[in-house]
């Protein structure tokens, strides 16, 4: 009989158990960490600006809340329905915004968010585009509120 290195081990038709590690090879460690422990998640009752955006195709939906004092973002939080990349991008965005002047916040691009996350898979770059979208909309909302 032909020698069998591993087949037939264990009982019956049993498959040899496979080991796994607590990381996901599709995403960077930074994305994984922000997905597992998102920063600044939740609604902000006293927000000065709120931005909503969604991708009509993939269905991801983000809401960004900002608190502004002396033309500076002092606090940001988010609510997101989306994939791991969308949640991580939201979390990263709130970190990036904190302490920024309104002018600097307006200059954040989708690439900045993706880079801060240690890169995103090509098919997930649209999540960082969504992050840029909510920043813009939250700033617009703030300016509109402060004018009225």
């Amino acid at each position, binding site marked *: 009989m032909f020698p069998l290195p591993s087949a037939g081990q264990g009982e019956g038709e049993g498959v040899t158990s496979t080991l796994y590690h607590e990381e996901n090879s599709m995403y960077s460690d930074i994305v994984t960490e922000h997905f597992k422990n998102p920063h600044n998640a939740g609604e902000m009752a006293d927000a000065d600006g709120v931005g909503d955006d969604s991708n009509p195709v993939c269905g991801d939906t983000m809401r960004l809340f900002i608190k502004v004092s002396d033309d500076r973002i002092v606090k940001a939080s988010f609510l997101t*329905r989306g994939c791991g990349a969308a949640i991580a991008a939201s979390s990263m965005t709130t970190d990036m915004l904190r302490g920024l002047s309104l002018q600097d916040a307006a200059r954040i691009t989708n690439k900045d968010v993706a880079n801060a996350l240690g890169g995103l898979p090509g098919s997930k770059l649209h999540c960082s585009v969504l992050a840029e979208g909510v920043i813009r909309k939250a700033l617009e909302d703030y300016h509109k509120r402060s004018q009225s």
Partner: protein
Amino acid sequence: MAKSLIYLDHAATTAVAPRVLEAMLPYFSQVYGNPSSIYSFAQEAHKAVDDSRDKVAKVLGCRPAELIFTSGGSESDNTALKGVAFAASQWGKHIITSSVEHHAVLHTCQYLEKFGFEVTYLPVDRYGMVDPQEVEKAITDQTILVSIMLANNEVGTVQPVSDIAKVIKVKSKQIGHGVSFHTDAVQGAGALDINVDKLGVDLLSLSSHKFYGPKGMGVLYVRRGAPFVPQQAGGAQERYRRAGTENVPGIVGTAVALEIAAGQLESNAAHCRTLRDRLIEGIQSRISHVHLNGHPTRRLANNANFSFEFVEGESILLGLDFEGIAASSGSACTSASLEPSHVLMAMGVPTDTAHGSLRLTVGVDNTEAEIDRVLEVLPGIVERLRALSPMTSSPSR
């Protein structure tokens, strides 16, 4: 820290069974002759292919000569549809299929449309079922081929294939020429009876790695007399219907795997059904705003497919992955296209709900303890994601 994997994605692929692997191994480097060669050493490989064909024929209840070994389910589907369409175009250029077929069928239909074939994509009900009466209504004197899957790969709905076959027979007599009936049985094999006469089909596709056989191997059954033009030329293999040196170990593995699957059909289905129902009941009792996708009873024994409102499927998969649980989703975010599952869309599942879908497909090696582990961690994963979701406060239904 390494933990052991809980594999609940058997509709995606399965592990090669130890007995299958054992049967395959000699044909890689010991009995490596080309079955087309004359000398006795190669005839050993030839005999292995013949014996394997006999075994598969026995399970399907067909003649060995009606079988073509292929590179998998996708090739079988492509070859079936193109093979019939181009051979039967003298009688008409109309094809009927359903809107929930695998892309191997749907994209082949789109390809055939470029060659002047007209395709009717039948709707399904909210459980994903095709109505045989809709098939009957769609058949015209131009119809040459109907392709309806045996069971759906995403939601597990089992189609009334033998009823559709009866309708086609009656109609084809009325229109005065044959209408070939193909079924993609890729998900059905190992879970359902795939006897071709009982099903009433003229062509049937199988994929070996769905029933504990090797990847890169499939089977296409073509009933004797069915119109068929080969899609791969260049040799006399498979009776000139599929050129290329045979994948001997793959063919041997396919036959052994199918033989085991057929022999254990009832016991495997019973085992899977118990685990599946434990999952369905457990999830529905522990988590709110969850919908079971697919048919409540006419579904594959191993398939549980849910939609969780307010959350996105990929994020659930990621949460499960960190717990060592492998599952799948029809969510847009798990595909390169970003579009949500065409199956859930065809069933009329609202887009927002479709985005939160999760498919768990159990297998022969899963245990109740593994299911209980899923029931232990999944509610927390969904709850955590819902806490992050802007939609939680405004239920969509």
